[in-house]
C-alpha cells in the first residue's frame, strides 16, 4: 500500500518527500546536517536536526506526516545491500547487527571512501526499563549530540546512523551503546596483511636479503606497495631511486624488498605498506644482520667435540689392543687394519648358507 511503499524508503526521507512533492502534495524542503540521516520520529517531530517548511495544504501534509509516523515506528527493517543516495557521490554501504549478549564485534573492510550506515538492533533488557539511553562512540569517545533517551515498548529497538568514511582518520571503531552496558563495535579498517612473520629474518654483513609481504588471495589487492624503515620513532619511506642499494619488486598481491651490501646498521624494523584508496595498511618485518663469526662459534665448538670424541675412542682402542698384544694373545694388534678386514671377509666368503638358525 501507500504506507508500505513509503516505509520501505523510510531511511531516505529526502527522496520520498521529493516524490510527494512531484505528486502534488506540497512543498517540502528538508535541511540536513552534512552526512547524517534523520530518524523518522525526529523528522516528524521537527527537532533541530531538520526544518520542514510546510505548504499551505497543511491538512494533507499533516495526514501524510501522521501516516509516516505511524508506519515508521513499527518498522524493524533490516536493509541490506547498498542503496545509493542521490545526494552523495560516494556509494553507501549499510550494515546492521542484532545484539546477542553484552557486547559484539563486527569487522568491516573498507577500501575506498564510502558512506557507511550502521544499524544496531537491541532486543531489550530483562529488567524492562521503560526509558533507555543510547549513544554512539568513536574510538572510546562519545560522539557529540548522539545521545538519546528513548522509550522501549516490548519490542526490539534499532539505532541507525550514517557516517562518512573518507580519510584514514575516519577509520577506527564505531560503537552503538545501549544503557552504558550493551554495545556493538564496528571495526572499520583497510584490509590487513594476514601472515606476519614474528621472528626476524637473519642475514649476514656483505650479503643481500629479500623481505616479502603478501596479501591473502581472498582479500582485495592493493593498488600499490610501499616500504618503510623505522628510524627512531618515525617511519621513513624507502625510495629505490635515491638509494640503489634497495630494490623493490612489486606484484599485485605481493612485494619484495631486496637490500644489497648489508651492514649491521641495516638491522631493525621495516614496514611494508599495502596502499588502498582509503589508507595504507602496514605490516612489520624485522631484520637482523650478523657477522659470520656468530655461527662460527657453535661450529668450532661442535668440531672440537667431534675431534675429541674420535681421538678418545681411537686412543682407547689402541691402548686396549696393545694390552692384548702384551699378554701374548693372538697378534691381532700387530696385523694391519686392511689385512684384518680382508681376513674376515674371506672367512665369511667361503660359504653362503642362508642363516636362519638360531
Amino acid at each position, binding site marked *: 500500500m501507500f504506507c508500505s511503499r513509503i516505509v520501505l524508503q523510510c531511511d531516505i526521507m529526502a527522496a520520498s518527500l521529493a516524490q510527494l512533492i512531484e505528486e502534488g502534495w506540497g512543498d517540502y524542503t528538508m535541511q540536513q546536517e552534512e552526512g547524517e540521516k534523520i530518524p523518522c520520529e525526529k523528522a516528524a517531530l521537527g527537532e533541530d536536526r531538520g526544518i520542514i517548511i510546510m505548504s499551505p495544504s497543511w491538512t494533507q501534509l499533516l495526514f501524510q506526516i501522521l501516516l509516516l509516523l505511524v508506519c515508521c515506528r513499527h518498522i524493524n527493517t533490516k536493509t541490506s545491500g547498498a542503496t545509493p543516495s542521490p545526494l552523495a557521490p560516494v556509494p553507501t554501504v549499510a550494515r546492521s547487527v542484532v545484539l546477542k549478549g553484552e557486547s559484539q564485534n563486527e569487522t568491516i573492510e573498507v577500501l575506498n571512501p564510502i558512506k557507511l550506515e550502521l544499524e544496531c538492533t537491541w532486543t531489550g533488557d530483562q529488567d524492562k526499563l521503560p526509558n533507555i539511553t543510547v549513544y554512539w562512540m568513536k574510538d572510546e569517545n562519545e560522539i557529540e549530540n548522539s545521545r538519546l533517551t528513548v522509550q522501549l515498548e516490548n519490542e526490539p529497538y534499532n539505532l541507525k546512523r550514517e557516517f562518512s568514511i573518507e580519510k584514514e582518520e575516519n577509520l577506527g571503531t564505531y560503537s552503538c551503546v545501549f544503557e552504558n552496558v550493551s554495545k556493538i563495535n564496528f571495526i572499520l579498517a583497510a584490509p590487513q596483511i594476514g601472515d606476519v612473520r614474528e621472528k626476524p629474518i637473519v642475514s649476514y654483513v656483505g650479503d643481500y636479503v629479500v623481505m616479502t609481504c603478501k596479501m591473502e588471495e581472498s582479500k582485495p589487492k592493493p593498488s600499490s606497495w610501499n616500504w618503510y624503515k623505522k628510524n627512531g620513532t618515525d617511519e621513513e619511506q624507502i625510495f629505490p631511486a635515491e638509494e640503489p642499494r634497495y630494490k623493490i619488486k612489486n606484484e599485485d598481491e605481493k612485494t619484495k624488498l631486496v637490500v644489497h651490501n648489508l651492514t649491521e646498521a641495516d638491522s631493525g624494523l621495516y614496514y611494508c605498506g599495502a596502499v588502498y584508496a582509503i589508507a595504507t595498511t602496514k605490516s612489520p618485518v624485522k631484520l637482523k644482520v650478523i657477522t659470520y663469526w656468530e*655461527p662460527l662459534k657453535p661450529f668450532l665448538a661442535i*668440531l672440537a667435540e667431534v675431534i675429541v670424541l674420535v681421538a678418545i675412542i*681411537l686412543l682407547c682402542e689402541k691402548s686396549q689392543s696393545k694390552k692384548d698384544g702384551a699378554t701374548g*694373545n693372538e697378534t691381532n694388534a700387530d696385523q694391519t687394519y686392511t689385512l684384518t*678386514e680382508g681376513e674376515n671377509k*674371506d672367512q665369511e666368503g667361503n660359504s653362503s648358507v*642362508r*642363516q636362519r638358525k638360531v
Partner: protein
Amino acid sequence: MPPAAATNLGYTPPDGGWGWAVVFGGFISIGFSYAFPKSLTVYFKEIQEYFSVSYSEIAWVSSVMLASMYAGGPVSSILVNRYGSRPVVLLGGLMVGAAMVLASYGTTIIHLYVCVGLIGGFGLAFNLQPALTIIGTYFQVRRPLANGLAMTGSPVILFILAPLNQFLFDSFGWRGSFLILGSIGLNCCVAGALMRPVGKSIQPKPKTEPPECDAAVAEKAEAVDTTEQSASLQTEKGKSQSRSQSCVHRFIDLSLFTHRGFLIYLIGNVVMFFGFFAPLVFLAPYAKHQGFDDYSSALLLSILALADMFVRPATGFIGNSKWIRPRIQYFFSFAVSYSGVCHLLCPLASGYVGLVVYAVFSGLGFGMVSALLFEVLMDLVGAHRFSTAVGLVTIIECGPVLLGPPISGALVDISGEYKYMYYACGLFMLVPGIFLFIMHYYNYKKLDEEQRQSVAVEMKTSEETVKLQIGLDDKTAHEADR
C-alpha cells in the same frame, strides 16, 4: 642352539660387548642418513625467496640428496668390501660436513644441488650401508634386536633435528644453519670411530690359511677354497659362482641376481616402495584438506613418528624371539600387508579422532617394516654378501622411492580427492605383502629340502671318511703286527 659353525661366518660373533657400541654408532649413522634430507625442508621457503626460484626447484635439492644416497649404494658396497666399514663411515661423515659447509657459501641454486644434493647424498650413502653391514658382523643370535635398535635412529634423530633446525634457522638464517649442520654432520665420524672392525674385538677361529682378498693371492685362495668346500654345507643355487665370488668378484656380486631369496625380496620391495612414503608425505595436506588447522595436521605426523619410534625396537625384540626368528620372512610379509591394509582403510577414518587412530596404526606399520627391512635381507643372503646386496637393493629402489610421492601427488591433483591415492598406496603395499607370503612359503620349503639333501650328502661323505680311516688303521695295525 646349534653350534656357531652353522653360522658359517668363520667366527663367533660377539652378540654383545662392543657390539652395543657399534649399534649406537649405527643408530647415529642410519639416523642421519634418513632424517637429514627430511629435516632440511625447514629452510626451503627462505632459500626459495633468496634465490628467487620456484618451490619445485627447491624441492629438487631434497630429491637429489635422496637419489644420491640411494645411487651411492653400490659404490659404498664396493668400498666396504675392500676397506671395511670404519673408513667408509669416517669418509662419509667428512663428506657430509664438507658438503654443508660449502653449501653455506653458495651463491646459486646449482651450487646447492651439487653440495647438499650430490656430495651430501653420497656422504650419507657412505654412512648407511656400512652401518648396516657392520651390525651383521657383530651379531648373529641377537641380530634382529640389534637391527631394530639401530633403525630406531631414524625417527629419533628426526625428532631431534626438526626442532633444532627451526631453532638454528631463527637464530642464524639459512647460511649459518648450514654451517652448523656441517659440524653436526661430522658427528657421523664419531659413529664411524665406534665401528671397530670385528676382527679386533674377538679371536677368529683357528683356520688353515686365511686367504686374503687380494688379486695376487687369488689363485691360492681358490685352491684353499675348493678343498674346504667339499666338506662344508652348500645349499645355494649359485654354488659354482660362490666359490670364486669372494675374491674375483669382489667388486660387484651380480651373482646375487640368481639368488632366489634375493630376487623375491627385490621384486616385493620395489613394488612396495611405490606406496611406502607417499601416505606420510600427504598426511598433513590430507588433514588440512579435511578442514583441520595447520597445528593439528602437524601433530598427526608427530604422533606417527612417536608410534614409529617405539615400535622399532619392539619389532626387533619380537623378531628375535624363538617363534618368529626362524620364519622372520613371514613377519616381514605380515608387516607389509598390515601397512597396506591400514592405508586402504584410511579414507574410512572420520573426524580428527579417526585420523589420529590412522596415524598410530600406520606409524606402527611403518616402524615394523623399517625395522625388518634390512634384517630380512641379511637373513636371506647372509652377512658376508649383505654389503653387496644392500648396495644393489638401494640403487634399484631409488626409482620407486623417488617416483612414489610425485605419482601420488599427480593422483591427488587429477582426482581432486585424497582417497584414491590412499587406495593406490594401500594396494601397492598389500599386493607385495601377499606376494612375499606366498613366495617365502615356497622358498622355505625349497630351502628345507636342500638342507635335508646336503645333510644326507654330508652323512655319506663322513661315513666314507670313517670307513677310509678304519681301513687305514687296519692296514697300519696289520703292518705293525708283522
